């Protein structure tokens, strides 16, 4: 009797879980499937739920017209800014943890930098960049994303570095290593898992950002989210291109998430939960 009730309960849970998952994944399914449809299938009424055959013409167009370069731009910008933010953020976090540089005040000031709405930051930055020649350049966006991600990296890495046993560093110092060598040779390797997890989120923030790129790019370094909005026209929307470009920009993120499943929670909640 008890066992049957438990089985029914489990069955109900699977049913609910399945239904919820279908509802949440349907939009993603629709986006992907549109990118494989022919124009006739996209503009069919009633909608085609499953295309007759999968075809890649929508992607071929993006490659032929050279639009796909925006994915490369996103990769360069998000990649470079991630490396910079991780390096400078981690050494800063190390100082905050081990030497308590600036105390709590500095740490709180740093995290408060993250709370500012991007639109408020980007407007004066745009005026500064017009003056410095940073609009529509790689370095302009790299600098901005590095700065925007630094508070997150510092905040996260503080937690990971605090977990490293201090004895390891002390024995390296006794062995005659300089502080710098300890940082590079002991702390960085020991914080590997944390570095990896934090870097993925840092990358995703920069990769997915729209507003900074919208303001600071024109033609040369357009990133993929900005390019997606270029396909929305006044009269006709280029649905096939919207879908195909969106998929190109989304797949790398999904791959990153799949490989880093177990670090997800701590990274997403800014360390509020030890996952």
């Amino acid at each position, binding site marked *: 009797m008890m066992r049957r009730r438990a089985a029914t309960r489990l069955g109900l*849970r699977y049913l609910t879980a399945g239904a919820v998952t279908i509802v949440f994944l349907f939009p993603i399914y629709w986006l992907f499937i549109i990118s494989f449809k022919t124009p006739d299938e996209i503009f069919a009424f009633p909608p085609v739920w499953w295309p007759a055959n999968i075809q890649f013409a929508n992607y071929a167009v993006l490659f032929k017209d050279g639009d796909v370069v925006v994915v490369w731009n996103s990769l360069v910008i998000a990649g470079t800014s991630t490396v910079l933010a991780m390096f400078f953020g981690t050494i800063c976090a190390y100082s905050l943890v081990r030497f308590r540089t600036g105390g709590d005040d500095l740490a709180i000031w740093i995290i408060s930098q993250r709370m500012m709405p991007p639109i408020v930051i980007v407007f004066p930055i745009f005026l500064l960049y017009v003056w410095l020649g940073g609009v529509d350049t790689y370095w302009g966006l790299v600098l901005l994303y590095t700065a925007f991600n630094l508070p997150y990296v510092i905040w996260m890495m503080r937690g990971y570095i605090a977990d490293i046993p201090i004895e390891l560093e002390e024995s390296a110092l006794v062995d005659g290593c*300089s502080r*710098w060598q300890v940082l590079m040779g002991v702390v960085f390797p020991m914080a590997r898992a944390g570095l990896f997890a934090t870097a993925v989120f840092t990358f995703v923030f920069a990769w997915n950002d729209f507003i900074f790129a919208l303001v600071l790019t024109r033609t040369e370094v357009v990133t993929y989210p900005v390019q997606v909005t270029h396909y929305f026209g006044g009269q006709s929307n280029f649905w096939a291109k919207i879908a195909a470009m969106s998929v190109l920009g989304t797949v790398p993120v999904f791959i990153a998430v799949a490989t880093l499943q177990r670090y997800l*929670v701590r990274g997403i909640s800014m360390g509020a939960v030890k996952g």
Partner: protein
Amino acid sequence: MTAQAAAASHPAHARGPFLERNFKYVIVAPAIFVLLLVGLFPLIYSLIVSFQGLGMIEQDTSFQGLLNYKTLFHDARLWESIGHTLIFTAVALPIELALGLLLAHLFLEKMPGRAIFIALLTLPTMISPIVSGATWRLLFDHHFGPINQIIAWFAGHQVPIIWIINPTTVYPAILICEIWQWTPFMFLILLAALSNVDKSLLEAAELDGAPYLTVFRRIVLPAIWPVMSVALLIRGLDLMRLFDIVWALTRGGPGTMTETVSVYTYLEGFEQFEVSYTAAIAFLVIFLLTVAVMWLLKRMEIAR
């Protein structure tokens, strides 16, 4: 042993005693410099410019006193955009929290395949908001989109709902997209928080025959509150700067019906190019947000 002697005895100290002595400041400096450049500079610059008269046509750098700030108070469109932002926040945040909590309870107990479900449910949060806006625009299309088709199945006849143009459906449309994208975020964090709640307390309460709602209020809620409040703060701040989803779905339309503060600021700054006035708006936003965050942080600490 002096610093020099130490450096001489260890050739590895080639970076010199300066680095060794000021090590903790040297490694903080680059990050602080970048943050000051990109964080503090805009603040100071906006403050100065907001007292001037820079616009598209006028290049008036003379100081105008509080003129721009006075204009703020008579700018109906600005206050409406603040109102829209508050509506989005007030509706989306509780729904995301409630749905996140329900989902977290659904997946709290172990079951085979649980990890796969959780991984799949995470995906919407990882997508670029501009892409999710675009996706929902395709879904909501009144003719070729699947949403109206699904509604038609239930209604028994075709429904011509023009989601993102009709004033009565445009808010639900944006909110559905927002809630779809960020409920998984709440779910993940709350699931982790719930998993850390002391099981023995729950079992004791269950033996006493207390209904789950009571157990939740008395035991679970206080235990997850520290994490839940951080999640609410992060999401609340994100909602206050809502831009991408609205931009992709409606660009603030129809008319100015769904303009958020960020959208309005963008239009003033980058389409009207009202430099000084935009700076004043930016400052007002920073001020209001700072007050709100301070107040919230205080409240949450008391509640703890």
